[in-house]
């Protein structure tokens, strides 16, 4: 039975949520004329992602080898799993050996470790960061939460399956997996890339509409362009 107050709340959110910064606004230009600004259209690139055909033959193999040996990881810890990443740089695990290193900005990274559960709010940021990474790019899903929701399977605010929102290359199960498991995951990813299967970015571009539909289903205050360049 719905009560008065709950109705009111629903009423409040009936309109699609749009932060005031994103509403169309009018400003007066220095020459006195009034111009209209639609922030989402004017300030963001509206292009869709494109599929990129791999090169042929040995060249692509060589490039894939280079990509596999140079995995630059985005330093973005989404959930509790992120505590398992820092040990990788310690002498005990020393991921530098494998050409893996942390980068602070998505622009310079290729690998995105979704380290644990993703709340809806974080998902939005994760999608944005993922889309800002230059292709080819890979996702390592760390922990059970990314597979089926893990211990948060019935939470009102945590996604259950990451692969409905982003293309995942490697899953690492466990709650939490140890750093060794993560290293193994890197190994697996390298294998995939070297074998030419690390084309999930293209898959994302191919199934772009499906991913977007899934994302928009739960992210109700969609206040960014469809693809974040």
């Amino acid at each position, binding site marked *: 039975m719905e009560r008065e107050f709950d109705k009111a709340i629903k009423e409040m959110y009936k309109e699609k949520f749009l932060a005031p910064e994103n509403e169309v606004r009018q400003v007066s230009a220095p020459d006195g004329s009034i111009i209209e600004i639609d922030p989402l259209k004017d300030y963001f690139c509206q292009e869709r992602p494109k599929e990129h055909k791999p090169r042929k033959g040995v060249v692509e193999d060589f490039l894939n080898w280079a990509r596999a040996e*140079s995995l630059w990881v985005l330093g973005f810890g989404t959930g509790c799993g992120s505590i398992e990443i820092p040990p990788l740089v310690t002498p005990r695990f020393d991921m530098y050996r494998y*050409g893996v290193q942390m980068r602070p900005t998505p622009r310079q990274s290729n690998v995105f470790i979704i380290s644990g559960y993703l709340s809806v709010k974080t998902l939005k940021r994760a999608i944005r960061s993922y889309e800002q990474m*230059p*292709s*080819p790019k890979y996702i390592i899903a760390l922990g059970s939460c990314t597979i089926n929701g893990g211990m948060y399977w019935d939470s009102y605010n945590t996604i259950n399956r990451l692969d409905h929102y982003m293309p995942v290359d490697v899953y690492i199960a466990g709650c939490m997996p140890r750093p060794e498991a993560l290293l193994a995951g890197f190994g697996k990813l390298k294998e995939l890339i070297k074998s030419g299967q690390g084309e999930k970015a293209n898959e994302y571009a191919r199934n772009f509409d499906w991913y977007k539909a899934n994302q928009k289903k739960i992210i109700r205050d969609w206040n960014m362009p469809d693809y974040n360049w």
Partner: protein
Amino acid sequence: MLMSSTMRRIIARVSGRIGIPWYQPWIDLTKLYSLRTQISHGTMFYLGPVFRLMGGVGMFLFMPMIFGSDLWSNYSFSGDLVLILYFQFFGMLGMALGAGEGGHPYSAIGISRGLSQFTTIEVPMTLAVISLAIQYDTLSIAKIVEAQQGGIMHWTLFTNPFATVAAMLSLLGAFGHSPFNLVKAPNEIPIGPPTEYHGTFLGVLRTNSAILHVAEAALFMNLFFGGASNWFELIIKTFLIYFWSVFVGTVFPRFRIEQSVVWFLKWPTIIGIIAIIIYL
């Protein structure tokens, strides 16, 4: 230009920690140059890295590398030490402009820090160069190198220790390792000026940083450590100079920008002034 490949190898060896494969920077570069998607923020986004690389390449081009070799004195006949000093700014400006075009706030913060620090880094360097010019009565690098020939005791390191110390301290800042790496501050303002750079752009920047570091090390080698008369000497000396900076960097924590600015104006400057005073 041909020797840059060798140089990069050394840089990779020194800059990586123990576990890194010696070929890793090469792979990174290959990967960067082979990325499929790229974005561009505009014209200056292209020009910035080019300016930057030009700064490094230019320093290289105008500096005599190997003493006594016509081929490896590059284009040093067209300009002297002053030219080299000012060519650094070329890259500086390029980086600043290119990063600015990205419109990223962190870039601007990084650049403002970098430039702030740079102003004071150059003070001891300038004093040292003036001191050298007084000492050798020339601004030509080739002549300075020539004057240092004939045994280790002829090196500026020993004939003019104050200038050397001032310049070496300034070098710490120029290389931007800790404690003077607030410019890049990888965690607070992700990577500083080149936040927005990726792919080939970043590749160009990394290429440049390799060249620039070698060029600067070579400059110091020429000025203070007797120059090099063959390849082996060149490699060893630049390696050691670079290692000095890395060594200091591993020992000290990071300075805040005003601290580093003031620091450079304190001890290195005083040493630089002493270096001049003894020649007055």
